[in-house]
């Protein structure tokens, strides 16, 4: 081996330093493997690179708003709720990294060390067998090659390290985990919980489990993280490390082992297939700034570039063995992409509890786990939806006057009634026609084909929205909420930021790309453990599941390496 080749050889390579890539790197380094962690964007160091984290509202030139010219030039990212003046530097602008929308798709990306784990909504609900068994029972996609029992210990493993605040609720379709204490529910959330429990079978209103250190344990202190202070400014990066992101937790942990080489500005061109060895040999990387091409080598590769970019890298990794993309023998790579349906919202007010309010801030809300079609099929659409449930009182100000009268009013805000709202989080059915693919001509600055995205809602989604409105109007009505309004944002897929699939797991190499250990069936030393691996989407926010799948896959990869099987 030449010196340069030796210098570029590691025990493992992880592509992507976001939510799941951070976990892959942490696990590999913990187990003593010299790991190269590649990130296409810049480095973001915990504390050091959170420029807005301690800023007061008046310190922002536009008090949070994104200027009109930036919005006009970047319509997709500007539709993202978190793309605001305080966190916009963590999001990719449409103009910086274009893609081709065969159908409208708002692709929300964070190209930096930490990826979208910096700005995520921190919701962490486990899957159950009612989720894993969905495709098989209801006859769509393919059967998941794993069940809850396969992942349960890894959920626990990840939860203890991340720090999850929650209640043990004893709900069969939303298993309990390893929880730190919850924040309080509001009076109205508690009241609604009672109304729902009294009037419906198997419907629950619970505290939404979230990745916040409400009571740091020794492991969190060892990570250098502190108790969550309820700032609810998480998208800026947290000076306390109060919520989980890769920057504060997995990546510094991996660095402490001395086994990590973190390399930002590294755009992955492709995974190199070694025809001689019959497996992947390494990764071809383009320097984001100089465009210099370098190859890196390792016996095992974890691909965690973010669901759609993971698809892109595999499609772009062609060889004579895999002319249609690495591991793509059945032509299914880039197909059966799905997402979460977040279009529907309902709001109202509650006239009770006038003498009560909330005090301080809470970085989560209440949650209504899926109740439709859980134990058996009961509607004219497949699957179902979970929902957030939020309540709070806002100050009301009379701004009709001017002069001293107005000034007085502005200082004497009175509390409005309790405002309540729910947002639907619907499962979508993966379909062969929902695809991503490489554009035949158009390329980016680094010579890599642009991604074409061709993803849409279907009739099942429309029926589910209708049902959400009906059921929640009924539930809100039973609670005596008034001024009930429903709203269909008609937003394009993508804005849910839960795009999944394209490299799905399954039992059979003929109908899936990955096996039950997240290995490519046809190229066993490549593991995919980000959103691309998802066979179906269920309703839960997916990051916790990606992290658990990643830790489990690394454990398996290490045991296979020890046996000399990789």
């Amino acid at each position, binding site marked *: 081996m030449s010196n340069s080749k030796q210098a570029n050889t590691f025990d493992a390579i992880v592509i992507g330093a976001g939510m799941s890539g951070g976990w892959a790197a942490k696990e590999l380094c913990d187990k003593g493997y010299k790991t190269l962690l590649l990130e296409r964007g810049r480095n973001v160091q915990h504390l050091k690179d959170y420029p807005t984290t301690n800023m007061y509202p008046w310190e922002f030139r536009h008090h949070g708003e994104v*200027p009109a010219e930036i919005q006009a030039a970047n319509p997709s990212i500007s539709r993202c709720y978190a793309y605001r003046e305080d966190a916009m530097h963590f999001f990719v602008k449409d103009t910086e990294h274009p893609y081709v929308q065969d159908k409208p798709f708002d692709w929300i990306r964070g190209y930096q060390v930490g990826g979208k784990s910096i700005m995520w909504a921190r919701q962490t609900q486990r899957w159950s067998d009612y989720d894993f068994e969905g495709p098989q029972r209801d006859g769509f996609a393919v059967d998941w090659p794993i069940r809850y029992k396969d992942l349960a210990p890894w959920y626990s493993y990840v939860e203890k390290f991340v720090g999850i605040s929650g209640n043990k609720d004893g709900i069969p379709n939303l298993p309990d985990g390893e929880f730190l204490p919850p924040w309080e529910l509001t009076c109205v959330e508690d009241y609604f919980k009672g109304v729902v429990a009294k009037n419906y079978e198997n419907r629950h209103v619970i505290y939404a489990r979230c990745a916040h250190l409400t009571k740091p344990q020794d492991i969190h202190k060892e990570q250098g993280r502190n108790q969550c202070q309820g700032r609810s400014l998480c998208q800026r990066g947290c000076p306390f490390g109060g919520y989980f992101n890769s920057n504060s937790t997995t990546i510094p942990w991996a660095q402490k082992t001395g086994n990590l080489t973190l390399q930002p500005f590294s755009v992955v061109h492709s995974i190199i297939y070694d025809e001689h060895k019959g497996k992947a040999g390494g990764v071809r990387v383009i320097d984001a700034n100089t465009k210099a091409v370098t190859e890196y080598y390792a016996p095992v590769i974890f691909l965690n570039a973010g669901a759609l970019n993971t698809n892109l890298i595999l499609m772009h990794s062609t060889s004579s063995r895999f002319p249609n993309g690495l591991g793509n023998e059945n032509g299914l790579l880039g197909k059966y992409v799905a997402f979460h349906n977040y279009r529907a919202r309902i709001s109202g007010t509650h006239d009770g509890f006038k003498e009560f309010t909330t005090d301080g801030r809470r970085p989560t809300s209440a949650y209504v786990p899926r109740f439709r079609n859980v134990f058996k099929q009961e509607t004219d659409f497949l699957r179902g939806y979970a929902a957030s449930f939020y309540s709070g009182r806002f100050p009301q100000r009379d701004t009709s006057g001017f002069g001293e009268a107005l000034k007085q009013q502005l200082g004497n805000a009175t509390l409005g009634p309790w405002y309540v709202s729910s947002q639907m989080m619907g499962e979508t059915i993966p379909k062969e026609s929902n695809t991503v693919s490489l554009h035949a001509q158009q390329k980016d600055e680094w010579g890599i084909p642009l991604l074409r995205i061709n993803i849409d809602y279907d009739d099942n989604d429309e029926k589910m929205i209708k049902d959400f409105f009906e059921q929640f109007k009924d539930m809100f009505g039973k609670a005596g909420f008034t001024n009930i309004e429903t709203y269909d944002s008609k937003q394009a897929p993508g804005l849910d930021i839960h795009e999944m699939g394209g490299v799905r797991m399954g039992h059979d190499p003929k109908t899936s790309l990955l096996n039950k250990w997240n290995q490519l069936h046809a190229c066993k030393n490549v593991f995919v453990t980000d959103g691309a691996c998802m066979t179906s989407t269920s309703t839960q926010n997916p990051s916790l599941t990606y992290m658990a799948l990643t830790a489990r896959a690394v454990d398996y990869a290490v045991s296979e390496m020890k046996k000399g099987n990789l």
Partner: protein
Amino acid sequence: MNRRSALRTLMVVTAGVTLLPSCVQRPRKAAVAYKHLQLNGEEEDLLATMAAIIIPTTTTPGAKETGAHRFALTMIDDCCSAKDQEQFQDGLHKFQAMVKEKDGSTFGKCTPAQQQQWVAMLNDGKSLPHNVDAFYHMLKRYTIEGFTGSQYFLTKVRVYELVPSRFHGCIAVNKVSPSIDN
């Protein structure tokens, strides 16, 4: 300077002078460089005066001391659509014309009492020329936002806490400090 270039300079200067009507004063330049809005110094003063009438200085700071009118112009210049900016400018010009027609003067030269009357009329919003209402309400909305989002307001009137370190989900209203911006 040689003779030829001196002659050229003289010609340019003369041409400039002859193009200006002799009795019109050049409007004073705006103090701030805007990206889209076209405002002169007099108009800036008008907007500042108007903002100070909307949220006056009393024993406590008003729009003027909190820079609320500057914030309003920043927002209209940076965050409003081109259509809204046109409405704002057009409404402002029509308002200036109204003042000129009725009082034969500029808003700046009106007495404080007259200025108060003008703002009362704008705030009332009845039978105003096209875009004047939009102009006034854009200014008012952002002046309020600038004032209630200012350091003064968020530290002295309704205190914004960067680090609340607590959440009570159900607390008696009278147990919560009215000066905390929850």
